[in-house]
């Protein structure tokens, strides 16, 4: 499985080709962390940062926050709260959906209902 650090470094460096504000230093400043800390995260020397930092980083890199959190082995606070309300049920649902194809999973996400215009 691809490591969190490798993934964000690759994405940041891709963006830096067109926009110099995606240098390690400038991204770290925007995240409010030390460049050295970000560098170590990108090299997988340090584990992924806090949820708060990942939530700031995701839109900056045009990434989905839930995906980055999952890569970091974390679950967003809102998802934790949702699961903790009905942990057994959600554990069962997730296991049931493990082998379901993408389109079947998308069907159970909430749709905006179209009606009669």
């Amino acid at each position, binding site marked *: 499985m691809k490591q969190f650090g490798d993934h964000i470094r690759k994405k940041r460096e891709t963006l830096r080709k*067109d*926009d110099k504000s995606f240098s390690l230093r400038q991204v770290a400043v925007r995240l409010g962390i030390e460049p050295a800390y970000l560098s170590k995260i990108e090299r997988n020397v340090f584990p992924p940062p806090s949820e708060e930092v990942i939530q700031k980083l995701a839109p900056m890199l045009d990434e989905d926050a839930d995906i980055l959190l999952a890569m970091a082995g974390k679950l967003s606070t809102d998802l934790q709260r949702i699961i903790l309300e009905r942990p057994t049920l959600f554990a069962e649902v997730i296991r049931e959906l493990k082998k379901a194809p993408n389109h079947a999973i*998308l069907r159970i996400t*909430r*749709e*905006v209902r*179209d*009606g*009669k*215009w």
Partner: protein
Amino acid sequence: MVELKNNELIFNFPQVHPHASCRLDFQKTLRIPDDNREYELPPGLGSFAMEHTDDHVSKIPKDWSEHGGVFLPMYQSEALWINFSGAAGPYGRDYPFAVKIATGKINAVTGESWSDKLVKNPQDYLVVPDQPWLDGYCVKKGLIRQFVAMPLGKGYTAEEQLTGEATHGGLQVIVYPMKRERYEAMQKENRKMFSGDVCYSMNMVSEALPMGLAPGGLMRQKIYEDEYGFDVWDQQHSSRCFIHILNSSQWETITGRPVPGKSPSATDYTQAGLPWFEYYNDKLNAISGPEKLSGLDSVAAKGIKLGEEPLDQNDPVYPQNIQKLSSAKNQVTDGKW
């Protein structure tokens, strides 16, 4: 299928292609002066909040519930623009879509009444992502009139001016993905290149006037011709959504939450030296504005005919800080300050 996530409408077509995902959000913005001068593109000031109509069935008018969809809050004479984005596939190419936009079931590109089908000639749809946003009604080649919220029933909206009736209001959207085989062929070409809750009385809401969109000030914005050809659109698959617009007090009554503050005036924004924008895409041709839409009265002009003053703070502005945006991922370049 259509989802509402983080105040974005996401039109997914997993049955067509995994990359077929088109996103729309509605941006708060300055209302440009309605004085027949041509203005640059105003900024985006954040997305309007949106809610599922199904979550508030007991508090919304019955016909809104029948329409389904979502609703968003706007102050009277507030402006909006529609931002389009996609999920970039490999090799940096977003999946293309044909998108029809209507207000009060009047097509914003042609002025014709709503139909679910795409029309080739005159082209009645936008091509996304070539068209990165839409700020108003296409009134002339390279010119639009800004979308401005006005109460239905007062005669200002495009719907009322063209049909004489205030029936629908709101915004309507339908999205068609490109055919899978055409997209995959394009990908191959690109690959080669790269190898390099509160209880209220129902009456309070149902008796209040809903909002519609009316043509405001003039803005330089092109609506681009379909460069792919009509046959590439997969008309077997489409998703549509009705976006109802309510005023701030209706929003608070229905959702129990306050409406975020008003956008600054164009004068205040410009005097603060904040940027306006120009968008360039020289590779694409613009379509002409239809007579139906070019003949509409703007809100200010209609107000004069009605003996009303519907717009406050409508003085001309003279933006100095204009930033140029190119079609390459909407990059910002520095302009004339």
